[in-house]
């Protein structure tokens, strides 16, 4: 018997998410059984299975996305930008540099 990981798509344009796992002796049985173990309440529109040994985790996940400052890759690196726009806009208005053309 092998362990099969079960994945579902709730609706067709959702991503696949992990739903759980089952034990089965082969792929055919896994497909037959997963249907009733995980989807009997209509949990999703699609069900996928993959043998656990065919799933491989990336090592050292704690360093993914960088350990040193990578804020420039995320929104939090730019939190001040909205305020800066306001400030510069006001400054330009004061200096008479802003443009109006209606």
């Amino acid at each position, binding site marked *: 018997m092998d362990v099969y990981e079960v994945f579902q798509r709730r609706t067709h344009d959702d991503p696949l998410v992990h739903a759980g796992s089952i034990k089965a002796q082969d792929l055919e049985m896994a497909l037959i059984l997963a249907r009733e173990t995980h989807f009997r309440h209509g949990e999703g529109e699609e069900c996928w299975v993959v043998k656990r040994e065919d799933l491989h985790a990336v*090592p*050292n996940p704690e*360093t993914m996305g*960088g*350990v*040193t400052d990578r804020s420039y890759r995320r929104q939090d690196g730019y939190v001040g930008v909205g305020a800066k726009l306001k400030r510069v806009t006001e400054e330009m208005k004061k200096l008479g540099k802003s443009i109006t053309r209606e």
Partner: protein
Amino acid sequence: MSDPRASLLFALADDELILGHRLSEWTGWVPYIEEDLALSSIAQDEIAHARMLLDILSVIDGRDPDALALGRAPGEYRNAILCEQPNTDFAFTLACHWLYDHADNVRLRALQESSFKELREAVAVMLLEERYHLEHADAWFRRLADGPVDARHRFGEALANAIGMAEALFEPLDDESVLVSEGILPTGTEEWHDEWMARIGGMLDEVGFDQVLTSQGEPETGEMVPTSTGEIESTEQIARRVPSSGAGGRRGEHSEHFEPLWLEMTALYRAHPGARW
């Protein structure tokens, strides 16, 4: 340079900065898109490490990290000339990456025991990211060494071309004896060199690349890739221009590839003194 710690920090930071600069030039050009992304992250790691080291240096030196990175005269840069070599064939980039990251790993591990607290802390962080660099470099090393004839041949040639310059990563530092006596360097560059040589020697032996350590680099033939600006340069010219010893970088004596790199890297910064970007 009065503070001996500065000579160590300049050497470490400039290696990372200049290598990171070269690797970042590949972003958008690597002929294998998934690898483009991986190499770009490694480039960003190296530049980020340079920035950490320059932050520390900035306290000693007084200039801010950007001024240190982009505002020095060419002769003040202390990177090994391996790091400044132009991007040509991807096999050459991977060979330099493998040689460099093993060397970097050896010295960073040694520096974990440094008496210089700020450096020790930075090194601990850097090592976390460098682990991926080693995995990446070794994975490519095995695939190319074990690859089709052409790939193996190119990689072997590239390693032979780069090995002399890679050894010069361990060129003695200014004030090294003071650094060692103060425990800032727990071990000296010569010991680092020997440890690195034993490590890469073993790996080269394993894949039948032992000739890399005995041969002088032979010029490669006619590979072309765009440089940072897209101009095309052939490795044939490049290989001939590399000084055979590969040394000099730690004294600020660079290969002729450094000045164009420096000009491009620093021109905008230098043209607008005091500007914010």
